[in-house]
C-alpha cells in the first residue's frame, strides 16, 4: 500500500537548473509524481542563503515524507553546500526530537550522485556518507543511484539524449516505484542506472579531453591549458 503524500527534490549542484543533477532528479521526481505524490524542488545553492530561507527550508523537510537528493561528486565526496545543508537538517531533527532517545524513521531518503569520471564506482564513498547522514537524521535510507560520465549530459534533459540514456531512464522509473513504496532500491534499479552511457570508457575520456581543448580554444587560452600560475622557483616546475 502506498502511504506517501509529499516528496521534495534537493538539487545540490551550484549549476542549478542547467545541471545534470537537475536533469536526473527532475526526471525521477516526475515519475514519483505519477503516483499521486505532491512534489517540490529546492535548489540548495540559491534557496537556503538566509536565516529566514533556512527556517522555511527546514520546515519543508519536516512536512515531507520523501527526500530525494541529486548532487554531483566533488573531490570524492559531497559538495560543500550539500554538507552544510545536511548538517542543518540533522541538527534540526535532533532538536525537534530531543525528547525521544531515537529519531523516528517516518521519512525516506534517496540519493542520486553523478560524477564526471567514466566509472560510476567513484561515487561509492559519497554514498557511505549519505547513509550516515540518513542514520543521524533518522531517515530511512532507500539507497543511492550512482552515475558516471556526467560530462556527456551538460544540461540536457534525459529524454533529449536518445538511446544513450534509455537504461538510465528505465532504472529511474523503477526507482520511483521503490521510492513510493519505501523499499530499498532493487537490484534492477542499480543495474540499469549504473550501466555506462558510452562504451568502451576510453571513448568518453577521448571525447572529454577533446571537449576541454575545444572550450579552451574558443576562450583563446588553448596554449595556457597546462599553465602553472602558482609555481614557485625550485619547487614546482
Amino acid at each position: 500500500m502506498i502511504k506517501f503524500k509529499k516528496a521534495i527534490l534537493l538539487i545540490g549542484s551550484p549549476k542549478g537548473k542547467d545541471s545534470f543533477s537537475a536533469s536526473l532528479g527532475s526526471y525521477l521526481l516526475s515519475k514519483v509524481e505519477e503516483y499521486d505524490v505532491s512534489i517540490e524542488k529546492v535548489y540548495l545553492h540559491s534557496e537556503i542563503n538566509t536565516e529566514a530561507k533556512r527556517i522555511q527550508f527546514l520546515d519543508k523537510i519536516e512536512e515531507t515524507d520523501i527526500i530525494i537528493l541529486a548532487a554531483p561528486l566533488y573531490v570524492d565526496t559531497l559538495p560543500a553546500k550539500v554538507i552544510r545543508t545536511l548538517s542543518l537538517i540533522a541538527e534540526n531533527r535532533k532538536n525537534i526530537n530531543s525528547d525521544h532517545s531515537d529519531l523516528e524513521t517516518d521519512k525516506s531518503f534517496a540519493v542520486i550522485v553523478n560524477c564526471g569520471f567514466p566509472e560510476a564506482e567513484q561515487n561509492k564513498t559519497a554514498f557511505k556518507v549519505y547513509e550516515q547522514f540518513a542514520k543521524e537524521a533518522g531517515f530511512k535510507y532507500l539507497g543511492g543511484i550512482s552515475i558516471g560520465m556526467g560530462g556527456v549530459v551538460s544540461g540536457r534533459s534525459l529524454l533529449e539524449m536518445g538511446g544513450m540514456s534509455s537504461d538510465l531512464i528505465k532504472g529511474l522509473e523503477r526507482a520511483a516505484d521503490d521510492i513510493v513504496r519505501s523499499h530499498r532500491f532493487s537490484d534492477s534499479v542499480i543495474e540499469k542506472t549504473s550501466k555506462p552511457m558510452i562504451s568502451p570508457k576510453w571513448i568518453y575520456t577521448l571525447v572529454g579531453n577533446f571537449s576541454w581543448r575545444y572550450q579552451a580554444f574558443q576562450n583563446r587560452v588553448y596554449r595556457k591549458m597546462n599553465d602553472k600560475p602558482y609555481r614557485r622557483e625550485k619547487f614546482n616546475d
Partner: protein
Amino acid sequence: MKALILNGEEVDGFSLKHISKSIKEELRSCDFEVEEILLKEKEIADCLGLFKCWVKTPGICIIDDYGREAAAKLINSELVVFLTPVTFGSYSYQLKKALDRMIPLISPYFKKIEGEFHHRKRYSKYPSILAVGVMEKIKQAQSQIFKELVKRNSINFHSAYCEAEVFEMADNFDSKKIKKLVKVISEKVGEQND
C-alpha cells in the same frame, strides 16, 4: 619544508585550537615551516562547478577571493594537514568549501591511474596529506569512511603519502598519539624531499 594546516572548525562548532597546537609543535620539531589557515575566518565562496578554472583561466579559480590564496599556499607546501570535525564520515563544511576550490591545481585531462580514470597533474609535485578528524564520540563507521575518503583524495590530488586518524574530543586530550602520527608522515615527507 612547508606544512599548511587547513583548520576546518565550524562557526558554531567546537574549537580545534588545542589539537592544532599539538600538530604545530610536532611539525616544527620535524623542521617544518608551519602556516595555519583558520578557514571560518576567511572569505571563501562555494565552488560554482563551471570548470572555468580549466578552460577560461587555466589554473586559477574565476572567483577572486581567499580561495585562490589558499590554493597557492597548498600547492607550494610539502605537507597539508586537514584538521576537521568529522561530518557523517566526511569533512566539515568549512574544510570542504576550501577543498572544492582546489580543482584548478589539477589538469582537466583524464589519465588512467591503477585502472581508474583520474585527472592529470598540473604541477610536478603535490603535498602529502595528513588528515586529522575529530568527533565528540568516536563512531567506527564514520571513522572508517573518513579514512577511505582521505585515501581517495590522495589519489586525485596526486599525493605521495597520506595518513588519516580520527580522535575523540576530550577535555583531557592526549596529544601523544597525534604527535606520533605527525612524526610518521613528517619522516616520510622528509625522506621524499632529501
